[in-house]
């Protein structure tokens, strides 16, 4: 762990010992399954079926993640705000969203908040216009799931951004304000760019988590990769094959994301403070 020189993981500097053997193991396993998928009709069939849900999985993740970061950023600014109202509102949201399981949040958003919201809009519209004809069933399940994921992940991102923001040295904010930058300009040009470089690894983790948690949309019948695999398996009783392929697909996606994040980190690391 910590070597005599005080470094984590010291020694073992040889090329062989540093090689990513775990990746080789994965690649071998993946190759075996790719071979099976290419040669066996059954595996090819399952794979095509699962891949038909890939667009939904990627879309849910790609829409929810930026929104969650936006919500997290706004909440983080509330968490560090001098205004007790904003601070308490932000803290309340973070504590509630972090303290309720994501699955439960999905049910609550989908079956409680959305119908309530629709009713409120109808009531607010005064019985005329487009809003008056709105029904809860007009809000697609996919949108409800995205809303719930944004709500849940916004709380994580808020804590991440707040942590990054408070980790910057006070001198940065002082220099920015002493230059004459307004609070908003200081955030925009000095503090947030540094914060995002610093929290990039955590954001990458959260993106991977979100991609995995997008599988929860299947509980509302949204046909992402997980739902397709479940449907196929329950129709054919091919549980082992379907679920293994499903897991491998997620693994391939998350590994790709991890590599992408590593690349970004590398690009920014050189000049970070």
């Amino acid at each position, binding site marked *: 762990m910590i070597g005599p020189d005080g470094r984590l993981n010291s020694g073992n500097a040889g090329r062989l010992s540093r090689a990513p053997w775990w990746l080789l193991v994965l690649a071998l396993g993946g190759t075996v399954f790719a071979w099976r998928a290419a040669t066996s009709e059954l595996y090819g069939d399952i794979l095509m079926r699962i891949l038909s849900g890939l667009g939904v999985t990627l879309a849910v993740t790609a829409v929810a993640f930026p929104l969650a970061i936006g919500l997290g950023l706004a909440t983080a600014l509330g968490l560090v705000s001098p205004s007790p109202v904003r601070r308490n509102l932000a803290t309340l949201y973070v504590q509630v969203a972090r303290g309720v399981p994501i699955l439960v949040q999905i049910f609550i958003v989908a079956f409680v908040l959305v119908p309530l919201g629709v009713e409120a809009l109808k009531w607010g519209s005064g019985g005329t216009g487009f809003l008056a004809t709105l029904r809860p069933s007009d809000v697609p399940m996919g949108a409800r799931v995205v809303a719930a994921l944004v709500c849940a992940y916004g709380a994580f991102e808020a804590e991440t951004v707040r942590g990054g923001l408070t980790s910057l*040295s006070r*001198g*940065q904010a*002082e*220099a*920015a*304000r*002493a*230059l*004459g*930058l*307004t*609070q908003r*300009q200081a955030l925009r*040009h*000095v503090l947030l*760019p*540094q914060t995002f*470089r610093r929290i990039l690894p955590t954001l990458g983790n959260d993106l991977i988590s979100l991609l995995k948690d997008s599988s929860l949309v299947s509980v509302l019948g949204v046909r992402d990769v997980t739902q397709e695999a479940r449907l196929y398996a329950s129709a054919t009783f091919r549980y082992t094959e379907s679920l293994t392929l499903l897991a491998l697909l997620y693994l391939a996606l998350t590994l790709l994301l991890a590599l992408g994040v590593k690349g970004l980190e590398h690009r920014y690391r*050189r*000049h*970070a*403070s």
Partner: protein
Amino acid sequence: MPADPKPHAVVLEARSLVKRFGAVTAVDGISVEIRAGEVTAILGPSGSGKSTLLRCLNFLEVPDSGEVIFQGQRVRARDRDLDALRSRVGMVFQQFNLFPHLRVWENVALGPRVILGLPAAAARERALGFLARVGLSDKADSHPLQLSGGQQQRAAIARALAMEPVALLFDEPTSALDPELTGEVLSVMRALAAEGMTMAVVTHEVAFARAVSHQVVFMDAGRVVLRGTPAEVIDSPANERAARFFSRPGA
């Protein structure tokens, strides 16, 4: 020391400033005048409140009582007043505080572009001009952390100058530097003083203060115990504490 018989206008003035940190009174009712075209050196032992006084002048520390007067106007601790004051009065820090995510020229161009609203090309032009003045033309495209401490501090001075301020505040600008690097920063500051830049400098560099300042303020325990010309304060101090401070070897 350049002698100048005509009285200078007061640019920045503190009146009876008080700043407390818990039970400690860091600044205990201090009044100072920073006059146009002059260098005001603020000297004194560590913990005497020099930096706090300087930071009160642009409200990085909000004084508990007393007034700051900038160009005849009382400055109030609200954002609109402070942003106006700060964009006219530059500050240089002990730890440089360059923005590490921006290139050196971008550090210098940020204020002119964002605060003064210069077009990007003009802001870059201005930044390169000021970097040339502090001798850093060849480092414009570097990142701050690739520079030596002395170069970083000179870049920080260029950043402050690029706002074309009416006065500059220096908070121990050489205290984080070794003697060799201290020299290059002090020579930039000397050149500024010779051009008539209005400066308030908190420093431990007694020789520098003696050579360039018009007014020396000697502080101890949150109070000004002696003020006057360098000759009066440094060479023949009429105060026991100041005499002890300036008689130490190397001062």
